[in-house]
């Protein structure tokens, strides 16, 4: 494609997303006015919360790390015709594996410890995603249902671990002891929480992009997702590709858990969210970028901004927490709607949906 055409396309997409975000803020204002707050003050508080200081920028990136991983996990699965709704559970498996292994084995040097934990958590998530993949191919069990239900099992495994065998030495709080320093992802800058998990997330996204678009195996993944029957008749072993995509997706989701335990938090604690857990939010992160691995990095950041910023509206502008959900939902809806509209008007862009 000629560069000029491509730039023109970039411009169009930029424009459409910018407009949909503005419309999103416009629509959200209606709700903010309805509860008697000032929308402008609310948005100032939102931006201030996300970018107001070096600390808040660091926090916004922190929030983006797990979202990038779970978003990428969803993108790879959806792109390959497997609907993995189990990112939440696979992420928990990664977190559990990281904490349990780091607390159980003798302390190793960082350079050996971190890759080991990363590998084990990847395998834990891949294993957890492999079960529904196997059930789908072998017995035709709908993976939407099985992955969704399997999210609850690791949730309760965490409950058990943090109140039972791995509860902290004080035996007071539902959390494990801190994992050894050698098992922690180092921070970029002293005094800020932002850590190397961000770089890891970006590297994994780039690798996923190269894999999906620049290798023949990646092409088979996408072909399986684009048209199952056509892919089958081309001689692609679609069942095998779907299992592989699911396993890869699960492993990547688990890295979100790895980064939370080894990076941001340092211990495994009870409780992540149930309403907008990183696993479920990852699906939205993937959807608004049309399942593009590089887009996932940016949309993960966008959600990080939205979550960190809209939550700080509570403190800066006395906006109730429910507004956070409303704004997030409106943003997703306006961005997805703008994509649909563009497609309907024949103004589609190539996010690689069909191009090779």
């Amino acid at each position, binding site marked *: 494609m000629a560069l000029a055409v491509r730039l023109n*396309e*970039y411009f169009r*997409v*930029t*424009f*459409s*997303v*910018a407009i949909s975000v503005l419309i999103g803020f416009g629509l959200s204002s209606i709700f903010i006015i309805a509860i008697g707050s000032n929308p402008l003050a609310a948005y*100032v508080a939102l*931006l*201030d919360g*996300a*970018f107001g*200081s070096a*600390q*808040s920028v660091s*926090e916004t990136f*922190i929030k983006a790390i797990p979202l990038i991983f779970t978003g990428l996990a969803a993108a790879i699965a959806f792109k390959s015709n497997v609907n993995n709704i189990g990112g939440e559970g696979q992420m928990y498996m990664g977190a559990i594996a990281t904490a349990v292994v780091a607390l159980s084995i003798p302390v190793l040097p960082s350079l050996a410890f971190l890759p080991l934990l990363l590998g084990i958590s990847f395998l834990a998530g891949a294993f957890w995603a492999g079960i529904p993949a196997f059930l789908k191919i072998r017995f035709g069990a709908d993976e939407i249902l099985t992955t969704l239900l399997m999210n609850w099992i690791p949730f*309760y495994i965490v*409950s058990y671990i943090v*109140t*039972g065998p791995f509860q902290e030495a*004080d*035996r*007071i*709080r*539902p*959390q494990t002891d*801190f994992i050894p320093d050698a098992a922690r992802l180092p921070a970029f800058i002293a005094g800020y*929480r932002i850590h190397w998990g961000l770089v890891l997330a970006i590297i994994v996204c780039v690798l996923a992009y190269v894999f999906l678009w620049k290798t023949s195996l990646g092409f088979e993944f996408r072909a399986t997702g684009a048209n199952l029957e056509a892919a089958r008749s081309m001689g692609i072993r679609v069942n095998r590709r779907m299992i592989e995509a699911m396993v890869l997706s699960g492993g990547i989701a688990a890295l979100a858990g790895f980064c*939370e335990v080894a990076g941001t938090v*340092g211990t495994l*604690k*009870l*409780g*992540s*969210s149930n*309403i*907008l857990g990183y696993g479920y939010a990852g699906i939205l992160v993937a959807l608004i970028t*049309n399942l*593009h691995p*590089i*887009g996932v990095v*940016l*949309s993960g*950041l*966008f959600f990080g*901004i939205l*979550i*960190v910023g809209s*939550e700080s509206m*509570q*403190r*800066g502008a*006395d906006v109730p*927490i429910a507004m*956070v959900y409303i704004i997030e939902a409106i943003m997703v809806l306006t961005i997805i709607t703008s*994509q649909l509209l563009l497609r309907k008007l024949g103004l589609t*862009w190539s*996010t690689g949906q069909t191009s090779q």
Partner: protein
Amino acid sequence: MQSVAIVVIIIIAALAVGGWYMMQAPAPTGAKKMALVMPGSITDHGWDQEPYEGLMRAKADFGLEVSYTEEVMVTGTPADYDRIIRDYVSKGFGFVICHDFLCKDSVTAVAKDNPSVWFAYDGARFDPAIPNLIPYIPWGHEPSYMAGVFAAMMSKTGVVGTYDGLPIHIEVACVEAFEMGAKSVNPNIQVLKNYIGVWHDPKKGHDLTVSMVDAGADIVYGVGDGINIGGIQGAKEKGIWFIGGTGDQRPVEPGTVIVSVTWGLNPIIYTLAKLYSEGRLSGTAYEFTMHTYIDGKQVGPEFLEWTDANAGKVPQSVKDAVAKTRADIMSGALVVPLITKAPGT
């Protein structure tokens, strides 16, 4: 590509905030500022609503400027406490209460960095190295013991039930004290105990309550908030009495919730706010039981008795037993054992 679009938006947003930031000038009011950070919803009839109401009373009575953040654990994870607490500090708040036992690491780190700001969190152990960090804890074992006495005497089937979210210290203290209270009046009574695993899910509380009734229980004591909203509904469907927990849950369903154990979180937060506004906070652990008096007023957990509407449904013998148990606890004749580890763990 959409990705580029988002980059541009981020840049625009960053520029916009830069501009706004320069225009903004904070207007100090001079009032002392206090913040409360909570894991759940301020409408949960328990862990979060009670402190929220205490904060609002303090705002009205002491002229404090207050702010709160709710549902941290619903919208996010324990990792978010760090950011929220630091945000309050940067906005000039002089006292930040983090009302969760999962925020200890976060609040400790921020307290070390900001020795001139007061912090409090739900915990028990004071660290002299961080004198501006106050642990506070509501021990609900005494009123739970009274609930056990009440339940055992009200039960006709000889089976009573109790449940909680997770088997951790202050929760285990309530569940075990309930059982001891029940067995003190009827050694043969069967006490069904269960930990649900979560606190926020009404459905699970409902289902567990119904299954306890099916196993013979005719009165159930729930320690929790979200799970109790469901448990109360289950008790209502089955036509049994329910004993509320963590806060005053009698108003939720006056025909079903006959008595309630409160941890007194409303007066606890109110009192901490009062001490802060008067400059009287001190570096120590604040533990609250039925014996805790501050400024001559009892502050802390309490057994809330039947309302006038239900008084006719409580036999005089039960009323006498509850009154005697209360008198013994208050006089020290009865010391309710504080058990913080579930048997078998």
